[in-house]
């Protein structure tokens, strides 16, 4: 173990000594732990109680710890079939796109997560607030665990339908708005359920998007709203660019990443970070979140807040970052500096820096 790893491990140990971690139905879950270089290096672990898990975290202090969304009769057995799967929570993993602007990326994924919860999970799917458990992923996004008896036994095929609904996969205008033989268009009204209602509400609320020049023409706008409210789309369909409407329809979904995020939801044996544990790729905590709107990961997920300074050397150029209520400037490669411990830990874990010898 090198110097950084030893240092981080000691820090993590301190955290686990003072924080109690728990997970519902812990004895039915499979756990996986990670090393400095690999998020899941060993799996098929199990803990019979929260207490055993906490002892493990204090004594062995893994760099990452993840837990199955699935419930098993024998979580520690392998191969997988021997575990005897009895169900799984419904999970979502929303990851930020990676650009050079960490803050913007995290804002964007936060927006998508809010859209998912507000416009899909709570409304369309009717889950109650106490069934939806949200936490920061510890690095680039958010995890949602839904615990509800009804959905527990759903298999891949059914979960895929859920995720496709949320993503808007396969939506098309023709199946929502129909042209009649006498060239009229019949479509949804704002009170309709599902995507039909979402589209009608969007069009009623955003007439200016389709007719920027008629924004002051009250009669025209009222007529626009009134006809759509009755499900008559003739005026809309004949006056706008239908391609644009089709594109807007597709934005009503949550836009989950095709390759990664969708597969997490349909994977019945997925391991996801244990909420309130630490992430060695960022030093941040996968904190449980009650109010996402006001949540700021680069402030609220920081658990190491000592005022000490640490001497580090930058190994890869760091962009300007707002962290822990301070703005840290851009840092060039090979810069040596003493810097606040919270930010130093962040840079060390992000592999932007090493400890100055």
């Amino acid at each position: 173990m090198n110097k950084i790893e030893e240092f981080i491990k000691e820090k993590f140990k301190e955290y686990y000594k003072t924080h109690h971690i728990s997970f519902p139905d812990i004895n039915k879950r499979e756990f996986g732990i990670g090393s400095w270089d690999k998020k899941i290096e060993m799996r098929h672990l199990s803990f019979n109680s929260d207490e055993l898990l906490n002892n493990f975290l204090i004594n062995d202090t893994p760099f990452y710890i993840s837990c199955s969304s699935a419930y098993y009769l024998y979580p520690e057995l392998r191969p997988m079939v021997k575990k005897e799967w009895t169900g799984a929570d419904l999970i979502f993993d929303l990851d930020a796109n990676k650009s050079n602007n960490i803050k913007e990326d995290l804002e964007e994924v936060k927006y998508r997560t809010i859209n998912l919860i507000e416009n899909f999970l709570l409304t369309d799917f009717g889950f109650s607030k106490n069934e939806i458990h949200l936490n920061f992923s510890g690095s680039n996004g958010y995890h949602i665990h839904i615990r509800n008896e009804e959905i527990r036994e759903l298999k891949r095929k059914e979960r895929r339908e859920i995720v496709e609904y949320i993503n808007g996969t396969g939506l098309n205008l023709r199946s929502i708005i129909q042209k009649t033989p006498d060239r009229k268009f019949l479509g949804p009204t704002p009170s309709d359920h599902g995507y039909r209602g979402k589209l009608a509400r969007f069009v009623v609320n955003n007439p200016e998007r389709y007719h920027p020049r008629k924004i002051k023409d009250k009669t025209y706008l009222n007529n626009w709203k009134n006809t759509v409210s009755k499900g008559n789309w003739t005026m809309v369909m004949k006056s706008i660019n239908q391609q644009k409407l089709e594109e807007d329809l597709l934005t009503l979904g949550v836009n989950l990443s095709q390759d990664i995020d969708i597969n997490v939801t349909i994977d019945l044996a997925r391991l996801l970070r244990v909420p309130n544990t630490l992430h060695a790729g960022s030093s941040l905590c996968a904190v449980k979140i009650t109010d996402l709107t006001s949540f700021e990961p680069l402030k609220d997920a920081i658990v190491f807040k000592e005022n000490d300074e640490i001497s580090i050397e930058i190994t890869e150029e760091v962009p300007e970052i707002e962290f822990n209520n301070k703005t840290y400037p851009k840092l060039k490669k090979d810069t040596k500096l003493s810097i606040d411990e919270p930010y130093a830990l962040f840079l060390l874990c992000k592999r932007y820096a090493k400890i100055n010898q």
Partner: protein
Amino acid sequence: MVDNVILFYAKYPFTQYAKDYISSKEIVITQKVIESAEERVIESITNNIVPKFIEFVDETIEQELIIYAISRMIVSALDNKYFSAKYAVAESKRAREYIEKENETNIHKLVKDLELNFEKEGNYFLLPFAKYLKNSPGSPEYFLINKELSNGKIRLTKSEKNRIIEEKIRQRVEKTLPKKQKIPEVYKLQIENSALKIEPLLPKPKTKEVNFSGDIAPCMKLLLDDLYQNKNLSHHARWSLAIYLHKIGKSKEEILNIFSNSPDFNLNITEYQVEYIISKDYSMPSCTTLKTYGLCITECGCFNPIKYIKRFDKNE
């Protein structure tokens, strides 16, 4: 006067009510019963229908229940997924016909037995989405994305509700077929004899008959190859392949011919689905979508399998 309670059992012999009733009776199995059961299975497999009992007298109704039990044993003795799938479809279609004309009380009794907790809302019926997903027929108009979902419930018309009930019955009939080993010794021989008569009805695997000019996208080629080897394709695979075949100009008959290689091929269902795809002129799922279906097999760089063939044609 026919006992309405027993009539219910005969119409819906897969219910727990019917099962309890028949197990309380002493059963006599005559040659006529065996023959009727054979006929029930043969008709199901070849014509997708189950012959109905004609006279509404108590005696035939009870006999109907016994015929149902024996039919199931014959299907189990056949021990072939093709037969059990076809049989279950026919039984569920038979029940559907009764459901369409059924009174509210009996419908209520039936859905309770099937554990489908519909809720009435005006002219519509609401069903919790998890229940819906487990019992929805695989066709596109029943995809969650095309349904009205609010507050955890799917809103269904009466005919959609009946289709869900039909699907639930199909699943129940197929899943609860008795194990081959569990056929009672007393009539084992007779049942196995019936099965021997029916076995030759298994369709022979078809060979390639449809010609393709031009090139086929590699992902679609793999699906076709799988079909020709009588492998079972996932719903998304069938759906994508059917659209693809339509888009490259194959006729309905040609598409049906290709899909007839599927082990659970059902002409009625497939024909309906292919017609649906043709009538709605669905666009071909893009490579990105196919990736989420797990159907993409190589980076051929065509963005959409349709473009693969177009590109090839241009070069010609």
